């Protein structure tokens, strides 16, 4: 559907993206995830036609669109702040693209009302000024404005970033529902890992203009391909060589003690885990406990490593700081990365870049 091939983007002397290859499949919800300044928005804008790459090709449906202006690429875009035209009503905003195309006015009206109904905007709201709408309604106007031109691809540039937390959760679902309903190929940019994991079919994790990993949300979380991805997504504790050596002694895992090793917070426990593979127990001391209501966060020290873990607050007694305890770990959950390259040592599990 969409292919970015050997894309290089530079601004003056600064190379934002050195060499980018991406493949987005038809109908997919594809997310570009990364910290700010990592090049994800640049990649999206290159796809949209707002940035001309120094090198490489952009293909939509097999057709080379690298030199085409934005409006000839059949891409619709929802901007970070929706970019609704403040001097126009909701109807005029949605109809803008149709009127530029010089569609007949009755056709425009029909198309506008049709799309408005599908994104659940009432006739009454169509007559309003955009400033009178709530954040959620504005988002639907922005989506309707993009979709009314029947683009092949919908691009979303952090559309939830300027909303408060509660609305963000609500609209995240709404946006995902709209996408499934229209079945349109969607490229979504965000720096919020939670959003990316919850909404996407596949995620590309960006760092400094380079894609570190592409995969399904679960792939990326459980089998982070690089140390950066491991640290950027989810919460994990760094392990010491002594700790890893102790795990090796207690099991047959044969982990490398040279590598940088991490353990996700939810993968360690103070009780023998009921499910999963064989776990080993290591002697540890409770350093601190923070109560969060639903659960408590513990920090326990074992063989020089500060292991963070979560304990469900289910009414059972919990050890206070200073007590000796045992921390249980399944060796297969330990994520290991090459100390120089940062690449995952679990080669067989890492997903190769497409």
């Amino acid at each position, binding site marked *: 559907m969409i292919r970015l091939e050997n894309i290089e983007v530079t*601004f*003056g002397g*600064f190379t*934002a993206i050195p060499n980018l290859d991406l493949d987005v499949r038809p109908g997919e919800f594809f997310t570009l995830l990364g910290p*700010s*300044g990592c*090049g994800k*928005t*640049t990649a999206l*804008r290159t796809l*949209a*036609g*707002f*940035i001309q790459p120094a090198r490489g090709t952009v293909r939509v449906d097999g057709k080379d669109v690298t030199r085409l*202006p*934005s*409006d000839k690429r059949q*891409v*619709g*875009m929802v*901007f*970070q*702040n*929706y*970019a*609704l*035209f*403040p*001097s*126009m009503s909701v109807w005029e905003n949605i109809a*803008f*693209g149709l009127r*530029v*195309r010089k569609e007949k006015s009755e056709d425009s009206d029909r198309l506008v009302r049709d799309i408005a109904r599908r994104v659940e905007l009432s006739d009454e709201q169509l007559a309003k*000024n*955009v*400033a009178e709408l709530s954040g959620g309604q*504005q988002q639907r106007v922005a989506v309707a*404005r*993009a979709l009314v*031109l029947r683009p092949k691809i919908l691009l979303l540039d952090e559309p939830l*970033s*300027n909303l408060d937390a509660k609305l963000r959760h609500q609209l995240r679902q709404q946006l995902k529902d709209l996408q499934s309903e229209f079945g349109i190929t969607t490229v979504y940019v965000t720096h919020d890992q939670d959003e990316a994991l919850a909404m996407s079919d596949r995620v590309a994790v960006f760092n400094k203009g380079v894609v570190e990993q592409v995969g399904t949300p679960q792939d990326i979380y459980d089998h982070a391909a690089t140390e950066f991805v491991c640290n950027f997504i989810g919460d994990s504790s760094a392990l010491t060589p002594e700790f890893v050596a102790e795990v090796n002694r207690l099991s047959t895992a044969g982990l490398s003690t040279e590598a940088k090793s991490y353990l996700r917070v939810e993968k360690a426990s103070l009780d023998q885990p009921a499910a999963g593979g064989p776990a080993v127990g290591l002697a540890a001391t409770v350093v601190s406990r923070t109560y969060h209501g639903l659960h408590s966060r513990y920090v326990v020290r074992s063989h020089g490593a500060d292991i963070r873990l979560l304990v469900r607050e289910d009414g059972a007694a919990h050890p206070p700081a200073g007590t000796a305890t045992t921390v249980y770990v399944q060796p297969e959950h330990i994520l290991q990365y090459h100390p120089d390259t940062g690449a995952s040592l679990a080669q067989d599990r890492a997903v190769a870049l497409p």
Partner: protein
Amino acid sequence: MSGSSTVRSMARSPFVLVVGVILTWFIAAFLVWPNVNILMATFFPDGSFSGRAAEKLFSSQRAMKALGNSFLLAVALSVTVNLVGVFIVLVTHYFRIRGSRILFLGYASTFIYGGIVLAAGYKFIYGDKGIVTSLLVRVFPGMDPGWFSGFFAVLVVMTFATTTNHMLFVANALKGIDYQTIEAARNLGASTWTILRRIVLPMLKPTLFAVTILSFLTGLGALSAPQVLGGREFQTITPMILTFTNSPTSRDLAALLAVILGLATMLMLAVMSRLEKGGTYFSVSKVSSELQKQEISNPVANVAVHAVAYLLFAIYTLPVVLIVLYSFADGAAIQTGQLSLANLTLDNYIRVLTQQSGLRPFIVSVVYSALAAVIAVGGLLFVARLLQKYRNWVASTFEYLLHIPWILPSALLALGLIVSYDHPNPLVGGAVLTGTTVILLIAFVTVKIPFTLRMLKASFAAVNSSLEEAAAIMGAKTLYVFRRILLPLVLPAAAAITALNFNSLLDDYDTAIFLAHPLVQPLGLVIKANTDGAEGTEGIANTFVYTVLLMVITGVTMYLVYGRSGRRKGTKRLPDAAPGQPVPGPDLPPAQAPAEDDAARPAAAVR
């Protein structure tokens, strides 16, 4: 804090009471009474209502013609200023034009010279004995040397002089447009022209309404341009008011004309504030991205726009360049327009700066402007602080009254002062002020009040209120907090406001022409006198020198107040970077900074 804003708590503070008493006296004596008095002099000359002044006015053909001319000028100016103003804003801020920085400097030349100075400059260059006219007459002996006069000349000069408002307000509004809306429109298939017409201009609408009304008022109250360039056949209201004021028998006519001008001004300002309230045109987004310049894709249009832009650049800069050049020239060169290196000397500067007659008007203006600027800022520091702190009906009444000079044309204010204080008046301790040197100082202070007050209030508001509370908790008293905490923080802004006030008063003509002492004439009046040709080429040369000196002073002040902060913003921003906050200027609150003198005095003559 709620307790501190009641009227009763205000009355308990001795500091507030002292400031309140002085303020009440000032407002009553110099803002309210003169204007009430003028209404009474016009409509109740003998204690009972009389329409005689109106009858006299309507039967005077000259006066009616002037009224008509003023409205004609106002309407024409609203159109021409918008055409030129929007164009120069677009080529400097919206379109990608080669050399737009240079163009900007040319168009911005009206920031550093305006009013009588600009009118005089145009006359010396294009007028019947002007430099360019002399050159042209040599080439085309048949041409009319008086080609640059009347309605056409006034309109041209005022058009190019008043685009300052566009450069300030429209350019600022344009910068506020969220670039994402333009990208969105482009993504939806809109062309450059469609984007401009359907997206950008509609978003500028409220600002355009506002500057249109300011232009209309400028045209309506025009004084120096019609006086200098209008000739006999094109006279307008304000020059007419001036003429009528000078003879005691027709003073009621002057008053009536001033009242009409005042009413029209108030009406237009009311319309403006109505329009400002209606409708949201501003961006609804919280995060916006910075505007990027647009390419004009059509090559023919691109060339045409470049050509017009540079033509306008030439029109804007030619007077400045010629004035600077000829300020070094000798009398012969000025008279013939022919200039060679041999004619260029420093003689004019030496004469102006060393001879009593040349230097005196300059000194008079500097002293008047400095005194007025310092008094206005110094006095209003306390008032602004109190108005910002106490919010109740007493405070807002004071605030409204202090804005009287903003809504009334300066001709009306000046006339009010003349009429009210030409006999002993108990409000000023039984003194006669008309004809003294004090009255002009009072008027200068008065006209600067609204601008100074708004700017000072804004800078007090920008101070973090916790600072004050922290000081109060540690036991500091009101005056101590003011002196040790607030004043140091507001002082840079106050200095900047003083400088801007000083600048705009330096070349004042509109107020001085009514009120100046005959022996203590400020610069504006001397420049105007020189345009009448009484002083010969020496007068013209002096005017050029004055103009250059004024431009230097104004330019340096503007740079110190605005320029340094602008320079820091010049770093290039990458498209992917987070949308940055505008860097606020060090001296003025950012939202207020562009509101230079022009908004404060909408009815000022040429500016």
